[in-house]
């Protein structure tokens, strides 16, 4: 590990991606992710890689499809409206089982919305978004350091499962500066290994018979029987990911907690400040922060539901999306309340405290 440097989240994740061995980056400018594409335009050529400003997000994600189909660590990034355009390519990559990383620096929506932080794309990221039966692995950072660390994790998971991975960030994490420590660059030897890891299926240089290969990077299976098999195989892969890759953080969760907050990303960050103050005031409250929002930590939430827990609060920067997953985990055992903010406006720790105080009052009645 090197020394800490002060950086914006958008730049930190770009630097970390290069260090993780990403040498192919294709994107289209959009606020609030433009620092990411700008950083890549400066640094990728220095790393000997490809930086290409595509004509659209559609083109960018399909360039990633091509590069990932060649077995290379490839990445694209955008913000909400651009991510909608990338959904075509994401579905195709999931179908063709291509490893790739997509960063979403979320902003307010729907439509053109605004350029402030939001978590309005939770459903799109975790429940589909593109067409067909597929799953994206979705990582949700809550600090600049974690945003950067997730670049490496995202590529590891993408390669391990041959599946696209999304880092679901937002305008706040993208634009704020925090100290961050980077992993070292991949060594030449590691880069060579990365390059070869997918040779059994990817498009690469060929030989004559008997070693000639004919690899097909493809999501089309016109025969229903063959497609059935393919989709079932994908389903089995998703089950494996669910079993092995759930990640979450417990913050101040104790056996005698009376209240739990469930929040991810920026919303969790604000919730932590509220929890610190509430703890000082004697309220027994903790936070469960999903780090993978797919696969979702249902079991962790269920397990934290000790008999002392009276109510759960879900805080999100949207009208209430992840709350549906929390309710699935809670199975009606305790009331699940919601505090949301939309339009790119953040809640303050005080607003969370007030909400909890209100919930306490109701419980006492």
């Amino acid at each position, binding site marked *: 590990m090197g020394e800490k440097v002060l950086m914006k989240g958008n730049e930190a994740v770009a630097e970390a991606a290069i260090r993780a061995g990403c040498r*192919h980056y*294709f994107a289209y400018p959009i606020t609030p992710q433009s620092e990411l594409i700008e950083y890549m335009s400066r640094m990728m050529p220095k790393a000997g890689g*490809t930086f*290409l400003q*595509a*004509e*659209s997000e*559609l*083109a*960018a994600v*399909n*360039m*990633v*499809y*091509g*590069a*990932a*189909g*060649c*077995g*290379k660590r*490839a990445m694209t990034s955008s913000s909400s409206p651009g991510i909608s355009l990338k959904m*075509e*390519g994401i579905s*195709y990559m999931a179908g*063709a089982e291509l490893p790739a990383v997509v960063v979403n620096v979320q902003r307010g929506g729907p439509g053109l919305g605004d350029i402030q932080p939001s978590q309005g794309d939770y459903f799109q990221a975790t429940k589909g978004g593109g067409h067909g039966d597929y799953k994206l692995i979705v990582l949700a950072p809550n600090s600049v350091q974690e945003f950067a660390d997730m670049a490496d994790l995202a590529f590891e998971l993408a390669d391990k499962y041959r599946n696209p991975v999304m880092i679901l960030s937002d305008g706040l994490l993208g634009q704020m500066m925090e100290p961050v420590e980077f992993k070292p660059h991949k060594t030449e030897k590691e880069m060579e290994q990365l390059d070869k890891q997918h040779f059994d299926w*990817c*498009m*690469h*240089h*060929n*030989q*004559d018979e008997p070693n*000639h*290969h*004919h*690899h*097909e*990077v*493809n*999501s*089309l299976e016109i025969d229903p029987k063959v497609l059935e098999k393919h989709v079932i195989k994908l389903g089995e892969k998703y089950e494996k990911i669910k079993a092995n890759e759930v990640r979450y953080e417990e913050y101040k969760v104790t056996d005698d907690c009376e209240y739990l907050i469930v929040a991810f990303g920026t919303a969790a960050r604000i919730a932590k400040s509220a929890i610190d103050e509430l703890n000082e005031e004697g309220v027994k409250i903790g936070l469960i922060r999903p780090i993978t929002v797919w696969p979702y930590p249902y079991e962790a939430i269920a397990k934290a539901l000790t008999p002392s827990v009276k109510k759960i609060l879900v805080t999100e920067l949207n009208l209430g999306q992840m709350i549906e997953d929390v309710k699935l985990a809670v199975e009606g055992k305790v009331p699940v309340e919601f505090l949301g903010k939309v339009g790119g406006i953040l809640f303050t720790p005080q607003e969370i405290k007030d909400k909890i105080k209100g919930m306490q009052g109701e419980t006492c009645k």
Partner: protein
Amino acid sequence: MQVIAQRPKSLTDLNFTYCPGCTHGISHRLIAEAVDELGMRNIMMGVAPVGCSVFAYKFFNFDMAEAAHGRAPAVATGMKRARPNMHVFTYQGDGDLAAIGTSEIIHAANRGEKISVFFVNNAIYGMTGGQMAPTTLPGMKTSTSPYGRDEKDIGYPITACELLNTLRAPYYIERVSLLSPQDILKAKKAVLKAMTYNKENRGFTFVEFVSTCPTNWGMTPLDAQKWAKENMYPFFPVKLFRDKGVEGGE
């Protein structure tokens, strides 16, 4: 015994799925022969489109990607950038290239991507059952222009070569046809030239094939050839638009 004609090594053993008399089979063969003749089979990768030739990824005997509808030039860009020592072509129909994929083809050409694009213009959407294409001729009846294409309502056919020829970067642009044995011989030369330039990483090369779709035109293959000569040539003249490889070819 002397072998006079055999299946190019660059084609797999699979039988084509095309209708009898369809020109897709001819253009596949021309490309495969060029790859063989230039000894490029081990350094070649291709991109199949969405359209009747969607299964091209099964027919060419080297690594192939199947792209989303219209995105082949973007996919090819990713491939060429990822493996610059390899060589890449796309194979696209007129709906794929000149409707849903106009943005991708124009920008790949404008960047001068070092790829070859083979463009099959049959003036119709073959795969989905004969709907109007951006290249459908004025007055031509299709399943979505049942009264004939009305150019005052929907515009004139898009001419891809002419359009791309307005850009500076492309290295080679030629329109050939597959309507007679002599035409096919000329087409073969164009494909060879595009692939030679591709092998030498000279720049963006584009070959359009004036083709037929007997099935959706509702004609016999021979009538389709005749109809195409009479009706398509006025809009899509066979022509060398640009060849930066020869003096004055620009």
